[in-house]
């Protein structure tokens, strides 16, 4: 250890505020950037998934409509 006690470590010979401000900002920004990047990746996957589901829903609808038009018409009650 370069310091005699924990309080001496915090004070840093009068330079404590400068040193700890630097390390604080460094950690906050690094962690924020890492977390934000992970969240963005998850959001990208989620938006892709929603796109596929929307697409799947649309083509299903088209398939139903298409078959109704080309085949014998079947009346189905929706009540």
């Amino acid at each position, binding site marked *: 250890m370069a310091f005699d006690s924990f309080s001496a470590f915090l004070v840093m010979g009068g*330079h404590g505020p400068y040193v700890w401000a630097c390390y604080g900002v460094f950690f906050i920004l690094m962690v924020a950037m890492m977390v934000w990047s992970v969240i963005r990746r998850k959001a990208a996957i989620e938006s892709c998934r929603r796109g596929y589901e929307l697409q799947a829903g649309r083509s299903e609808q088209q398939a139903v409509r298409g078959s109704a038009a080309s085949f014998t018409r079947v009346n189905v009650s929706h009540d």
Partner: protein
Amino acid sequence: MWQFFHKLGSPKWFFGIATRLMPWLLAGGILLLMAGIVWGLAFAPRDYLQGNSYRIIFIHVPTAFLAQSVYIMMAVAAVVTLVWRMKLADVFIKAVAPVGLVLTFLALFTGAVWGRPTWGTWWIWDARLTSMLILLFLYGGVIALDRAINDEKSAARAVAILVLVGVVNIPIIKYSVEWWNTLHQPATFKLTDKPSMPADMWVPLLLSVLGLYLLFGWLACLRMQTEILLREQRTRWVKEYVMAGRG
């Protein structure tokens, strides 16, 4: 060789490699960075001239070093984008520019806070500090230009040209402490010389530089994957990947 080059340009291939590399990059990066910082903060001897304020060096030098080498990597990717039209190179530039911006800001901020007790001022308009500020604006410019152009291909080309023009700034930052009179001290590490500080100071510094490099690698992989997913969402492999992750 050409096959390797071709593979390197394949987003799908890169995606798989990145997934396998990322846990190692993250674990190694955090471990090395923490080791360097704890060693530097608590165990390294105090500087006879600057006292304990010099302990800021263990984050100032890594962020400043990374800020510049990320820009150089972006410049290499810009050449690849312009010459070979490799999509992955453009994805890289887009993914890491914000990381470079944050690193440059951190280098400037820690430098200013370190300058206060050491030089007696937060900021002066000397060559090293001003050229670093220009680097910050270059990163900002790259991000803004990319967002301003909707078409993916023209955005890639415009951004690549801006990155290449801005690369002039890198040697200016590097040699500013030798060409001009400046308050900033000369480079801490030189490839040709032995370090000018005791091992108890430069070993933790080297550890934190390497750690931050690995963390940057992790961030780059993660952010490139995000970009690839969005760009390639019409391909079958992305669809399979996304839908498999659900169940």
